[in-house]
């Protein structure tokens, strides 16, 4: 593929797209950055002061493991734009290829960059042989041309844009399963499209399934229970019950069906009152998270907690079959 292979972060990144799914992404990044940093410190002694400032920013991407960066928008973390040697070589190889500079795209990008100007003033890309070229029209990004590179503002802006895109592509690569071997932009886009389509189809299918399973839209006992669980801490319960309910929520969400199965098991084999609540609740037509629920649920929770250690996965083969099926879909 002619397209420039994914260069490591070199850019005045306005935003850091962190996938959050893989801690390994960050580890990789950090390892990469450390490697780059070591290289530079050997080479660019003159630019020490710049790097000092930049390096301090560096640990930030590693510290965040969640999603929050999407909300950061333009005031994300400034990735120190570090220069890599291998980048240089790749650049030289591609220097002849000039993408068609679409002025409109440039202006759009410039507008966006202007909007995110706070972080960008700190960014520079280092060079081996400095050419006295200022960045493109925006005074916020200082991009120096590398040796043997075209120096007009268009191509510089183009390069910045390209690198940003390839950086994003890399994150997407980690996110979308099975994308590790594909390195071209078009192929990556293809995979992403397939993945999004398959997820959307799954949503359709699942909502259809839920519609068939529920004769009325008043929805399920377990959703009611879940809702109850959310509201339980708000109701005047003792602290222990609230905590246990909270743990229940977590376990329910993370362990999937097993707690419900356990509850079912209790209901089938347990004391008389419990099955009643299930039968009664299944006949409920209205949403009535009323007082009558609380006591029964309270009992349910207690039993659940006491016997949680003895939960056996209920019909495991069935569920794994379902999961495998959908996993297959995901990997397509």
């Amino acid at each position: 593929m002619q397209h420039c292979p994914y260069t490591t972060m070199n850019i005045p990144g306005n935003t850091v797209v962190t996938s959050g799914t893989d801690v390994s992404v960050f580890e990789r990044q950090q390892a990469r950055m450390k490697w780059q940093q070591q290289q530079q410190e050997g080479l660019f002694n003159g630019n020490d002061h710049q790097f000092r400032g930049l390096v301090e920013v560096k640990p930030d991407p590693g510290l965040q493991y969640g999603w929050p960066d999407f909300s950061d928008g333009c005031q994300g973390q400034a990735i120190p734009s570090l220069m890599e040697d291998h980048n240089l070589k790749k650049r030289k190889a591609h220097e002849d290829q000039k993408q068609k500079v679409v002025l409109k795209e440039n202006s759009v990008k410039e507008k966006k960059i202007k909007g995110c100007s706070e972080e960008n003033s700190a960014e520079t890309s280092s060079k081996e042989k400095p050419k006295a070229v200022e960045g493109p029209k925006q005074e916020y990004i200082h991009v120096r041309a590398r040796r043997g590179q075209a120096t007009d503002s268009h191509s510089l802006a183009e390069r910045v844009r390209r690198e940003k895109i390839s950086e994003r592509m890399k994150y997407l690569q980690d996110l979308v399963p099975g994308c590790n071997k594909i390195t071209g932009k078009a192929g990556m886009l293809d995979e992403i499209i397939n993945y999004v389509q398959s997820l959307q189809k799954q949503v359709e299918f699942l909502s259809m399934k839920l519609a068939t399973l529920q004769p009325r839209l008043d929805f399920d006992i377990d959703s009611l229970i879940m809702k109850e669980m959310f509201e339980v801490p708000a109701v005047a319960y003792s602290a222990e019950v609230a905590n246990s309910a909270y743990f229940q929520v977590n376990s329910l969400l993370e362990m999937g069906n097993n707690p419900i199965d356990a509850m079912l098991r209790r209901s089938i084999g347990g004391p008389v009152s419990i099955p009643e609540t299930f039968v009664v609740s299944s006949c409920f037509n209205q949403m009535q998270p009323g007082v009558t629920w609380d006591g029964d649920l309270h009992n349910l929770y207690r039993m659940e907690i006491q016997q949680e250690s003895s939960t056996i996965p209920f019909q495991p083969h069935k569920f794994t079959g379902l999961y495998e099926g959908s996993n297959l879909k995901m990997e397509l």
Partner: protein
Amino acid sequence: MKVHTSSKLRKEFIKKWVKGLQICCSLKKNMDILERKKKIKLCADIALASTKNETTLWSIALISDAKKDDENKILVDNLLGPESRFKPRMTNRQMIACHKRVRSKKILKKSRHVCQKMKKMGPPKSNLAAYIAKTLVKRRTQVLKRLVPGGESMDEFSLIKEALDYVLSLRIQVDVMRTLANANEVLNQSDSKIID
């Protein structure tokens, strides 16, 4: 860490989703299966978008799209509450005008490109691979724009970022729905056992 944030999101999603379904149910009883499915999906989508709190473009677009339909509007407003800041970005007339503008710009751009290409027909062979690659990328970004809600008005760069975020949220949605569906199945089976 990821587990914590995602489980928090999942909880929020479930909450909003169930709430939306309750509202649906109270608004109209005895829907047939297709309507139910639509409502379920709609509520799920809105719940998903609202977990983002307007920080991403796709969530804003999703909600404003949902609001365009009058009958859904009530539902959405009820669901999101009076503090909902999700006002439709533009009125219908404005949207039409916007689309017209966008389309005419596209036509202009396309014709300009075609002219330039005609001029540049110099060394077609050497650039053929590049040309093909570029067209492929262009085609696929178009498809992606159609898939991601609100994608048409994004430039390529933010499109990828939005797609990323959208994928993550979709995953959560699928996950939650699947667990619910499975639990439901189990419940139904055991219900029949109890009754039998």
